[in-house]
């Protein structure tokens, strides 16, 4: 990168750190969200069923499996393995979450999103759809950033691509 100016390389260095933070925050949130749900399969299933979008048998599988998917993605993000691919998957998942919460709000359901455990029906007026959607959109932005700038510090990706990145520094 002999052609890049000093400003450009400074920007690249900043992007590297922004990506590192985005990766760790997104991975941490996914890991915690999955971990909190995995300990209580009943309420995880109940949380999925509360959306009234899936038949019972499918909701059961989602309630059992989704927390593990979140944990898997969280671990991959924290380790920094295949960051771009994992960020793609995380973005898809977050879009599904946002759509589900939106649909609950539109249909006038009174439910807790069950994003971090718990979930299920709540009293009318106890819903927090706005907060839940804003939080998910924020996480989606982090995922989008990582899709654009997947390179970051302290990642296993870096070990495997060192010979390339080293040459560019």
């Amino acid at each position, binding site marked *: 990168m002999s052609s890049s100016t000093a400003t450009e390389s400074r920007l690249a260095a900043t992007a590297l750190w922004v990506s590192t933070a985005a990766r760790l925050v997104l991975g941490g949130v996914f890991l915690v969200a999955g971990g909190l749900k995995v300990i209580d399969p*009943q*309420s995880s*299933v109940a949380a999925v069923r509360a959306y009234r979008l899936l038949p019972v048998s499918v909701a059961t599988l989602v309630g059992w499996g989704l927390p593990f*998917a979140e944990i898997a993605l969280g671990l991959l993000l924290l380790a920094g393995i295949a960051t771009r691919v994992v960020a793609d998957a995380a973005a898809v998942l977050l879009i599904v979450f946002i759509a589900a919460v939106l649909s609950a709000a539109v249909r006038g359901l009174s439910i807790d999103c069950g994003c971090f455990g718990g979930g299920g*029906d709540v009293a009318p007026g106890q819903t927090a759809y706005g907060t839940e959607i804003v939080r998910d959109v924020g996480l989606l932005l982090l995922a989008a950033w990582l899709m654009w*700038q997947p390179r970051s510090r302290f990642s296993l990706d870096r070990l495997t691509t060192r010979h390339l990145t080293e040459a*560019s520094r």
Partner: protein
Amino acid sequence: MSSAKKVDGAKNGGGANRVGGDKKVSSPKNMNARERARLAAEQAAARKRERRILIMVIAAFVVIVVAGGIAFQAWRTSRAPSSVSSVSASASPVTVTNGRPIPLGSAEAPVTITLYEDFHCPHCAEFEEQFGSTITQAQDAGSARVELYPMAFIDEGSLTAANAMACAAEAGFGQAYYLGLFANHTLQWSDPQLIDLATKVGGSPTEAFRTCVTRRAHADWVTSVNAAADTNGVDQTPTMLINGKEVDIATLTPEALKTMIKDAAQK
């Protein structure tokens, strides 16, 4: 996205030059255009292949984790209940009356603790973990009795457990069964699990109890206490009242609860 490609292009270009330099003794400068193009195409293909393998490995990893997770949860919710030890409150059989809660503990106890709980509500399980022993102690000491409204709004397991709770109270081991239900709250509460639990908590699953569980003998009663809870203005579980006064569970500590029960007994 277009700028991302540009960045990648620049990066890969740098890498390609270097790899090219490593492979051949000659420097990239000495390569002719066709050689360079061929090398670049080869490397692009290799990168594409690597990327495809990477995606497959990641997908396989996630699928295995999720499938394993589903199998694990299926096992966790369908296994046999664990036994609950040191259940001391021995209750006599109670009569189940429509619209009325299940009484647990001495009828002469000065303090009445009213509980609205769903056996599959996660916050109820947390509540039980935090305050269950304090309440049990008060029951054992004869200072408090519990009036239990088992709610059934989470899933089928809530209903089958609430029904079985009534069956157990009728059979005379309600208190132990109550603790057993919460100690095993991750179970889905199939009929065999509910019958098994009776043994595990030291009760005896008589033929009457089995039939009561499998036939959902108290399903109407469950509906009636849920309606009663509605009438009483209860819209969330767990809800606890001490001598008819609602307690704010969110800020409660076991110590504070102990004091509350003691104070209520002296009034």
